[in-house]
């Protein structure tokens, strides 16, 4: 076990820089998506098993807090998907591992270009009211 208080520094310093952060974000986003999948399969089961309970739960999905969480879920999903492709590229074309940093920056460029408009669409009903 690391000394208390060193975990945060380790996260940034173990092997250093982008490669370590890419790995840490991949792991954190992966576990977060896993937790959502567990919730989501159970809530979808309610569509058949208890539709009234499902409708109540879906009202939370459409609420402002729900929308913020969905935007975060989308961010986790998009990062994990893009960095996953980066991992596959380096696994199967090892010479490209030399450019792992550049590949990570490309991931972030796509993340921002795709993620910002999607986040805007998801969050917009918070201040404009939901479509019916």
């Amino acid at each position, binding site marked *: 076990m690391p000394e208390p208080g060193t975990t945060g520094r380790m996260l940034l310093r173990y092997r250093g820089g982008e490669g370590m952060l890419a790995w840490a974000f991949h792991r954190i986003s*992966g576990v977060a998506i896993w937790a959502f999948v567990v919730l989501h399969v159970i809530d979808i089961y309610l569509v058949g098993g208890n539709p009234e309970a499902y409708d109540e739960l879906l009202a939370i999905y459409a609420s402002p807090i729900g929308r913020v969480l*969905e935007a975060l879920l989308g961010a986790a999903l998009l990062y994990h998907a893009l960095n996953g492709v980066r991992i596959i590229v380096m696994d199967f074309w090892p010479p490209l591992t030399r450019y792992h940093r550049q590949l990570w920056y490309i991931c972030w460029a796509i993340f921002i270009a795709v993620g910002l408009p999607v986040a805007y*669409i998801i969050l917009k009903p918070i201040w404009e009211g939901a479509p019916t």
Partner: protein
Amino acid sequence: MSAPYTRSGRARPRGGGLELALWYLMRVTGIGLFVLALTHFLIVHVIYDPAEQDASWIAQVRWSSTFWRAFDWSLLMLVLFHAFMGVRTVVVDYVKGRARMLLLTGLYLLAIALFVLGTAVVMTLPVVPKG
């Protein structure tokens, strides 16, 4: 100076066998999920809004065709494999001995339960014609 080969995925297991098969399957399911999971997210959060959705919307619109049920069931299969094998890797990395065995057993039981629940609902929910 940084190491010439900084990895952010699990290193390819040496020696073949089950671990190598799982390593390949994580990548294959990952590519499948890139398409299926992102499409699914786009449909339910961008093309439609959660405010338009409820249990009858699923029966009447979202799951009104065999194609979309097969799509979501395929997504379920891929995500259960990929997510649970991914968490398995995390557990094996951080937990040892008896606790690891208990956690992994619980993990696999949860995966089987979700497989049953998800498959049951996507295959048996009656189609309700819209109108």
